[in-house]
Protein backbone atom coordinates (compact mmCIF):
# COMPACT_ATOMS: atom_id res chain seq x y z
CA UNK A 1 0.00 0.00 0.00
CA UNK A 2 1.13 3.55 -0.67
CA UNK A 3 0.36 5.84 2.28
CA UNK A 4 -1.43 8.96 1.11
CA UNK A 5 0.47 12.19 1.12
CA UNK A 6 -1.89 13.92 -1.28
CA UNK A 7 -5.67 13.84 -1.36
CA UNK A 8 -8.23 15.99 -3.12
CA UNK A 9 -11.40 17.44 -1.64
CA UNK A 10 -14.53 18.74 -3.34
CA UNK A 11 -12.89 22.17 -3.05
CA UNK A 12 -9.89 21.09 -5.12
CA UNK A 13 -10.01 22.42 -8.67
CA UNK A 14 -9.44 20.08 -11.61
CA UNK A 15 -6.26 22.02 -12.47
CA UNK A 16 -4.86 21.50 -8.96
CA UNK A 17 -5.67 17.80 -9.02
CA UNK A 18 -4.07 17.27 -12.44
CA UNK A 19 -0.93 19.12 -11.37
CA UNK A 20 -0.47 16.84 -8.37
CA UNK A 21 -1.12 13.72 -10.46
CA UNK A 22 1.34 14.75 -13.16
CA UNK A 23 4.09 15.92 -10.79
CA UNK A 24 3.89 12.87 -8.55
CA UNK A 25 3.13 10.35 -11.29
CA UNK A 26 -0.15 9.34 -9.62
CA UNK A 27 -2.75 7.65 -11.80
CA UNK A 28 -5.34 7.82 -9.01
CA UNK A 29 -6.21 10.44 -6.43
CA UNK A 30 -8.84 9.95 -3.72
CA UNK A 31 -11.38 12.72 -3.19
CA UNK A 32 -12.25 12.94 0.51
CA UNK A 33 -14.62 14.89 2.77
CA UNK A 34 -13.65 17.06 5.75
CA UNK A 35 -13.15 13.94 7.89
CA UNK A 36 -10.92 12.16 5.39
CA UNK A 37 -13.64 9.75 4.28
CA UNK A 38 -13.50 8.76 0.64
CA UNK A 39 -16.12 10.26 -1.68
CA UNK A 40 -14.62 9.16 -4.96
CA UNK A 41 -11.42 8.18 -6.73
CA UNK A 42 -10.20 10.34 -9.57
CA UNK A 43 -8.30 8.42 -12.23
CA UNK A 44 -6.27 9.47 -15.22
CA UNK A 45 -8.73 7.49 -17.35
CA UNK A 46 -11.65 9.64 -16.14
CA UNK A 47 -9.74 12.80 -16.99
CA UNK A 48 -8.72 11.51 -20.41
CA UNK A 49 -12.31 10.58 -21.25
CA UNK A 50 -13.56 14.03 -20.22
CA UNK A 51 -10.79 15.70 -22.22
CA UNK A 52 -11.56 13.66 -25.34
CA UNK A 53 -15.26 14.53 -25.04
CA UNK A 54 -14.31 18.21 -24.78
CA UNK A 55 -12.00 18.06 -27.80
CA UNK A 56 -14.61 16.21 -29.88
CA UNK A 57 -17.20 18.86 -28.99
CA UNK A 58 -14.78 21.60 -30.07
CA UNK A 59 -14.02 19.81 -33.33
CA UNK A 60 -17.73 19.42 -33.93
CA UNK A 61 -18.41 23.12 -33.42
CA UNK A 62 -15.45 24.10 -35.63
CA UNK A 63 -16.66 21.90 -38.47
CA UNK A 64 -20.08 23.54 -38.23
CA UNK A 65 -18.50 26.96 -38.52
CA UNK A 66 -16.44 25.80 -41.48
CA UNK A 67 -19.49 24.42 -43.26
CA UNK A 68 -21.45 27.60 -42.64
Amino acid at each position, binding site marked *: *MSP*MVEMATVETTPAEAFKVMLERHYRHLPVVDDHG*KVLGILSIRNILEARIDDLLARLESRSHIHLA
Partner: protein
Amino acid sequence: MSLLEWCDEGPATVSVLATVEEAVNKMLDKDVGAVAVIDEQGVVAGMFTERDVLAKFALSGRDAAATPFGSS
Protein backbone atom coordinates in the same frame (compact mmCIF):
# COMPACT_ATOMS: atom_id res chain seq x y z
CA MET B 1 -17.01 21.86 -11.58
CA SER B 2 -16.56 19.30 -8.83
CA LEU B 3 -13.96 16.60 -9.24
CA LEU B 4 -16.62 14.11 -8.17
CA GLU B 5 -18.33 14.54 -11.53
CA TRP B 6 -15.34 12.79 -13.08
CA CYS B 7 -15.14 9.98 -10.55
CA ASP B 8 -16.73 6.57 -11.02
CA GLU B 9 -19.81 6.03 -8.87
CA GLY B 10 -19.17 4.05 -5.69
CA PRO B 11 -15.44 4.29 -5.01
CA ALA B 12 -13.59 0.98 -4.74
CA THR B 13 -12.41 0.54 -1.15
CA VAL B 14 -10.97 -2.19 1.05
CA SER B 15 -10.29 -2.34 4.77
CA VAL B 16 -6.82 -1.62 6.04
CA LEU B 17 -7.00 -5.13 7.52
CA ALA B 18 -7.62 -6.75 4.11
CA THR B 19 -5.22 -8.96 2.19
CA VAL B 20 -3.61 -8.38 -1.18
CA GLU B 21 -5.94 -11.01 -2.64
CA GLU B 22 -9.04 -9.12 -1.50
CA ALA B 23 -7.73 -5.88 -2.99
CA VAL B 24 -6.89 -7.49 -6.32
CA ASN B 25 -10.35 -9.09 -6.47
CA LYS B 26 -11.94 -5.71 -5.74
CA MET B 27 -9.96 -4.11 -8.57
CA LEU B 28 -11.06 -6.88 -10.96
CA ASP B 29 -14.72 -6.71 -9.86
CA LYS B 30 -14.87 -2.94 -10.25
CA ASP B 31 -12.66 -2.86 -13.37
CA VAL B 32 -10.36 -0.24 -11.83
CA GLY B 33 -6.62 0.06 -11.32
CA ALA B 34 -6.62 1.13 -7.68
CA VAL B 35 -8.55 0.83 -4.43
CA ALA B 36 -8.66 3.22 -1.51
CA VAL B 37 -7.56 1.58 1.73
CA ILE B 38 -9.75 2.76 4.61
CA ASP B 39 -9.49 2.37 8.38
CA GLU B 40 -12.24 1.43 10.84
CA GLN B 41 -13.64 4.98 10.69
CA GLY B 42 -13.74 4.98 6.91
CA VAL B 43 -10.83 7.39 6.70
CA VAL B 44 -8.44 6.93 3.77
CA ALA B 45 -5.15 5.46 4.95
CA GLY B 46 -3.65 4.98 1.50
CA MET B 47 -4.11 3.68 -1.99
CA PHE B 48 -3.34 0.20 -3.27
CA THR B 49 -2.72 0.18 -7.00
CA GLU B 50 -1.76 -2.10 -9.86
CA ARG B 51 1.67 -0.54 -9.60
CA ASP B 52 1.91 -1.66 -5.96
CA VAL B 53 0.99 -5.19 -7.00
CA LEU B 54 3.79 -5.22 -9.58
CA ALA B 55 6.45 -3.39 -7.63
CA LYS B 56 5.94 -4.83 -4.16
CA PHE B 57 4.19 -8.14 -4.50
CA ALA B 58 4.10 -9.90 -7.89
CA LEU B 59 7.61 -11.37 -7.79
CA SER B 60 7.90 -11.72 -4.03
CA GLY B 61 6.67 -15.32 -3.91
CA ARG B 62 4.27 -14.50 -1.09
CA ASP B 63 0.71 -15.83 -0.83
CA ALA B 64 -1.78 -13.09 -1.82
CA ALA B 65 -4.46 -14.58 0.43
CA ALA B 66 -2.18 -14.47 3.45
CA THR B 67 -0.42 -11.16 2.84
CA PRO B 68 -1.89 -8.09 4.55
CA PHE B 69 -1.26 -4.61 3.17
CA GLY B 70 1.10 -3.83 5.98
CA SER B 71 3.70 -6.12 4.48
CA SER B 72 3.13 -5.30 0.79
